[in-house]
């Protein structure tokens, strides 16, 4: 056991500021299926649980374009090292409306019985949305947020919730996320 923990202990000493390892005990009832709640990050990076018809904010990441930070909180699972996949589906066609993002997360930040990602931006799917090379126009379009989760025991679940992508008051976003991004 000590040998298994040795690398982490050494790093903690050598790196000084190395992050503490997450707490990874089973969260919830192992006899129950994995349960999910969809959420999106607001402009401040805080997660907001999504209900049918809610707006999801298109936000500008460091280099360019616009993404939607949206994923899942969960319970009844191994919370560390889960894989989360998310993208928007066009209600009108059934095809993907945005690109897909898939990443690992540690759902160790508890709220109302659900585990949320320990790190908001880097462990929440960054759904690449704009510019949309397919010219469907993401902003204001009726969509479904599709999210999947698989934990270390290969237990998984899927959730879908109706959403509408919003630019808030960002005019550049409204153009780049519209149907003619090459004209912006």
């Amino acid at each position: 056991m000590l040998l298994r923990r040795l690398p982490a202990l050494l790093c903690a000493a050598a790196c000084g500021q190395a992050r503490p390892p997450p707490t990874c005990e089973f969260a919830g009832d192992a006899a129950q299926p994995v349960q999910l709640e969809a959420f999106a990050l607001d402009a401040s990076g805080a997660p907001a649980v999504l209900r049918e018809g809610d707006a999801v904010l298109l936000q500008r990441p460091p280099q360019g374009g616009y993404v939607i930070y949206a994923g899942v909180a969960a319970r009844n699972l191994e919370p560390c090292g889960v894989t989360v996949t998310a993208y928007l589906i066009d209600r009108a066609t059934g095809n993907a409306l945005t690109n897909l993002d898939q990443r690992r997360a540690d759902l160790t930040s508890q709220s109302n019985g659900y585990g949320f990602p320990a790190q908001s931006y880097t462990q929440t799917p960054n759904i690449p949305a704009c510019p949309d090379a397919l010219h469907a126009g993401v902003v204001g379009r009726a969509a479904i947020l599709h999210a999947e989760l698989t934990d270390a025991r290969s237990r998984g679940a899927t959730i879908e919730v109706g959403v509408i992508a919003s630019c808030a008051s960002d005019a550049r976003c409204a153009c780049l996320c519209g149907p003619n991004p090459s004209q912006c």
Partner: protein
Amino acid sequence: MKRLALLLLMGACGGAHDVQLAPPKEGFQLATDAFAVPLGQEVQRCYFFRVPGSGTDPLWVSHIVAAVNAGSHHMNVFRVRSIVALDGEDGTVVDGGECWKSGNWADWPLVMNSQEGGQIVDWTLPDGVAHRFTPGEKLMLQSHFVNAATQKTPGRGKAIVNFERAAAGAATPMELGTVFATDQNIRICPGDQGVAFAQTCRFARQPVTVLAANGHFHSRGVKFEMFASDAQNQAGAQFYVSNAWNDPPFLRGLAVPIAQGGGVFFRCTYSMAAGACADPNDHCCATFGPHVETQEHCNAFVYYYPKLDDATCF
């Protein structure tokens, strides 16, 4: 190829170990000066050029040769579009500063890239496919050299790219299209093993064919994969894999069909030793950014035809 080897003289003229490449008989050449890459530093320089010629007739290019000194981390050529805080006329060089800030070229379409320092990329496009340039259009060549812990530059920095005009033909060529895709929120920390980040980049409003690709990440990257993906974001056949972060293959001669509504699925997998340290101000973790020593990337470069839009996926 033999002719090219003769043209690529290493150390015969100019500075020690500087690449040299004769300009194409028809077409144009972009070349940087030779610059120092001091020990312990990363140097990134942005060079601005104008495509030579006048008038409105396009210049079609079907043969590209890139020669870059050993120690190069990357060499990217973009078409200049929206100006934020990085610009210059023909001959301008921006050393560091704004040349590090990727938001300055967010909508600048990719022309060509090479990660093959000390080697040459000699790329002849398939018959009937060509890169289209307009006389006078502005290009930017970005050169990044590293001489630190993760990569070494034995001599100086220098990069040259030849764009050779396509042979005149009866038919207008099919235009080469490019895709640049990057995952902008990644985080790899000491002790992480096999941590993966994946995205799709859909760009095929019509069916297209991918003919070349390469992936880019830094020293924590252990595997870079690309797959064709469909209109439902589902990954299909794998067409690219790289296990060498500092010498990723630039696959050419591909013929990967991309269905309408589809694109590429790309995945970067990282590991970091428990005792390693990237950014000491962020728990020794590596997050998105251009600095090889302290940050990470997950960038896909894809070339296809026929061109639709200039595609970038963020």
